[in-house]
């Protein structure tokens, strides 16, 4: 069956392949990968290292990232920030760790010698370091990136991640859930059909996703996890165990780090060996040498591993699935024999391990990035992801009314009608929350906004329609409208305690201060390219489907295009952008009609298609 796809971007063979990169922005390590149409590769730095420790050092003289930052960790600890991902999109009340300070309204920042630094800025610095690897690999430009996030990330955490990319100057095509990315890395290679479970034990978070691959569509059936369970917790358990063995209750921060690092090393070594020795004199003067065996590690970690299995069972139930065809392991801690064993037993499948569990997420992201920049191939796979946590609004008595249930396929638009509680009520506070609990205080508060100007009526007479829109990135936009008056209010949910849009703009401006002229030229070029693409797109569409518009509609659209063409020569980036936006809006009706027509065309072949399938099977 051959249908012209309206969204297809023509890829002429003589045009250079566009560059889309996949980024795994991890709690402990980050990676950037590329797919060249044939092979996947993780981009290394000038020293050949592929994995970048997610650590940034804010020294008085310079900012260093990765290994270099870790090397400075001991001498100046408050200036060295690790695991910033744990703080993304969080507000003060949610974090118990020390070492951060109040910032913005409810936000938090780390106090460094260079002043307060927010988790978003730390992430941006890590992204900049990854970007340098792309330069080093010889890419003179990046057309777009796909950044992975834990499936369990809520809206605020996703928004914070997007902001970090914006700060680093990276064009984000898509935020992709980590387990989905891992499944893509495997699924596209194997070309298999079936149900896949992805068990992702990262440094700081645990995710489980159940996906089905069928007819070129990857459908996430359910996702779940535990955002406070990670491989780092295993390291700490071992560290605590070592300290107990030598009756040490308190130690310096440096020693604590030493114990944690030793715990991690022992955990890794116990993958290969059934018993290892730990030399504690590395950490404390005259510390003894201890022997730790694998059974001890397993006994220590069993409660944590069991917690992950509970999440797996819940996810299977949510997906309505009782058997899976394949199990994919993600994250370094899944190398632990105990993890492999119990996960294999739970799903009754030997877990796949062909791709390095530390790299599989970045590789899946790279494949998706390559696809999204427009390098379409024959075996394109479409991803249908879900929203990980339910979204709702606050209602009477601090209860939550859910509007979008968790595990709903995105994008999604859902509306619900509400009314006023008091006679003569003219305003309505809409409090948007995310989570599975019944009470507002147990859920994540995402945004509050007010719909005002409701005409005074008796309680229960007003009809207020609240619409939730979640895009393919899992990002939320909420609008409210009083039906009788049309009074409307709208909000794009931004983390209220992250960086405000203006703060981001200020930082971007500061970064470009020295290159103001370059910046203007770039903006003009970008605006012109967008405008020309729109003009060409409309012209091509009018050519093929022009009869879908009546003469009046066609005239109006053509007038908008002409106005835009005239604006192009003005050299005013802002004006061109405005005209592009206007012409785009004017073309929406046409675009919608063309889609309606292609539905008919697409489905015309279905019965024939299924017949062929049946004969073939």
């Amino acid at each position, binding site marked *: 069956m051959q*249908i012209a*796809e*309206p*969204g297809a*971007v023509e890829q002429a063979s003589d045009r250079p392949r566009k560059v889309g990169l996949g980024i795994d922005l991890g709690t402990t390590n980050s990676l950037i990968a590329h797919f060249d149409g044939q092979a996947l590769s993780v981009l290394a730095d000038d020293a050949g290292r592929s994995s970048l420790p997610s650590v940034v050092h804010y020294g008085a003289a310079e900012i260093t990232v990765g290994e270099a930052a870790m090397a400075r960790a001991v001498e100046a600890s408050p200036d060295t920030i690790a695991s910033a991902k744990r703080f993304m999109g969080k507000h003060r009340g949610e974090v118990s760790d020390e070492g951060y300070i109040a910032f913005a309204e409810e936000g938090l920042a780390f106090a460094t010698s260079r002043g307060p630094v927010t988790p978003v800025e730390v992430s941006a610095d890590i992204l900049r370091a990854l970007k340098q690897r792309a330069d080093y690999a010889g890419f003179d430009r990046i057309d*777009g990136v796909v950044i992975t996030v834990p499936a369990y990330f809520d809206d605020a955490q996703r928004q914070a991640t997007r902001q970090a990319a914006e700060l680093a100057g990276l064009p984000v*095509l*898509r935020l992709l859930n980590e387990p989905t990315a891992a499944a893509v890395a495997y699924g596209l290679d194997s070309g298999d059909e079936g149900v896949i479970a992805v068990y992702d034990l990262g440094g700081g978070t645990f995710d489980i996703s159940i996906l089905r691959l*069928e*007819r*070129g569509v990857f*459908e996430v059936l359910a996702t779940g996890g535990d955002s406070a369970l990670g491989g780092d917790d295993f390291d700490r358990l071992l560290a605590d165990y070592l300290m107990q063995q030598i009756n040490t209750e308190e130690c310096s921060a440096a020693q604590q780090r030493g114990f944690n690092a030793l715990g991690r090393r022992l955990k890794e070594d116990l993958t290969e060996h059934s018993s290892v020795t730990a030399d504690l004199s590395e950490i404390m003067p005259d510390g003894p040498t201890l022997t730790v065996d694998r059974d001890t590690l397993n006994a220590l970690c069993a409660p944590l591993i069991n917690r992950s299995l509970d999440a797996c069972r819940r996810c299977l139930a949510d997906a309505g699935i*009782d058997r899976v065809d394949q199990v994919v392991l993600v994250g370094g801690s899944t190398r632990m024999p105990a993890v492999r064993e119990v996960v294999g037993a739970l799903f009754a499948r030997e877990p796949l391990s062909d791709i390095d569990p530390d790299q599989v997420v970045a590789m899946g992201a790279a494949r998706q990035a390559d*696809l999204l*920049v*427009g390098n379409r191939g024959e075996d*394109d796979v*479409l991803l*249908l992801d879900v929203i990980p946590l339910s979204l709702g609004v*606050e*209602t*009477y008595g601090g209860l939550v*009314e859910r509007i979008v249930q968790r595990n*709903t*396929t*995105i*994008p999604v*638009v*859902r*509306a*619900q*009608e*509400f009314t*006023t*509680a008091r006679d003569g009520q003219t305003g*309505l*506070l*809409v409090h948007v929350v995310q989570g599975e609990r019944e009470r507002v205080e147990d859920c994540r508060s995402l945004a509050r906004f007010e719909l005002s100007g409701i005409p005074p009526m008796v309680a*229960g007479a007003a*009809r*207020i329609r609240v*619409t939730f829109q979640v*895009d*393919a990135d899992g990002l939320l936009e909420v609008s409210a409208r009083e039906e009788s008056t049309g009074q409307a209010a709208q909000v794009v949910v931004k983390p209220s305690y992250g960086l405000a849009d203006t703060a981001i703009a200020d930082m971007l401006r500061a970064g470009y201060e020295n290159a103001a002229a370059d910046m203007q030229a770039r903006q003009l070029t970008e605006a012109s390219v967008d405008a020309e*693409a729109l003009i060409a797109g409309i012209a091509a569409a009018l050519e093929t489907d022009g009869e879908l518009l009546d003469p009046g509609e066609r005239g109006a659209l053509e007038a908008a295009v002409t106005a835009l063409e005239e604006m192009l020569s003005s050299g005013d980036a802002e004006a061109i952008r405005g005209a592009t*936006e206007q012409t*785009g*809006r004017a*073309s929406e009706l046409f*675009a*919608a009609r063309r*889609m309606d027509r*292609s*539905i*008919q065309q*697409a*489905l015309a072949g*279905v019965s024939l*298609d*299924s017949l062929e399938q049946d004969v073939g099977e």
Partner: protein
Amino acid sequence: MVSPVDAEAPSSRDYFELFQIPVAFDVDVEDLARRFKLLQKQFHPDRFAGNSAAEQRVAAQMSAELNAGYQTLKHEVKRAGYMLQQSGIDLSRLEREPVDGEFLMQQIELREQAEALREQATSPDASVIEQLHQSALALYQSNLAAFRLAIGEGEFEAAGKAWVKMLYLAKLRQELPALGSSGVASWS
């Protein structure tokens, strides 16, 4: 603070029409899934990543509509509710109306049995749980049959009464103790 009135899907084209399938309660779910995936492969915003913002907006709307339509038509209870709604029946009114006494008694009995199993000290016998699920399923299926008959003859009020019972039973089923892997026939 807001007070909920009624959940509804955004107004849109008829879902049966969207997937170009006959308007009938019995839907070939496999065929529906095939149509859904074919259309998503064409209209998902990912397919428009390089296109104009206007096209991306329209694609996102279309894709969201496909998701909503697929989820609604895929599940029996949701599909039944949707057909009633499309016939002009107010679902929230149906949900507020009291159900008949006999059905109420049957429900209470099933719930009491489930409660007794939960409070029991020893973990209940698998066959006892299965028995409970079977009873609930039988009750569901008789109402499903009643719905199918009524909606086919255009008797929306009767269909509505059967739908409410299907809804109750689907909720009840979620509250029953979980079946082992050798479960009875699944409900949609």
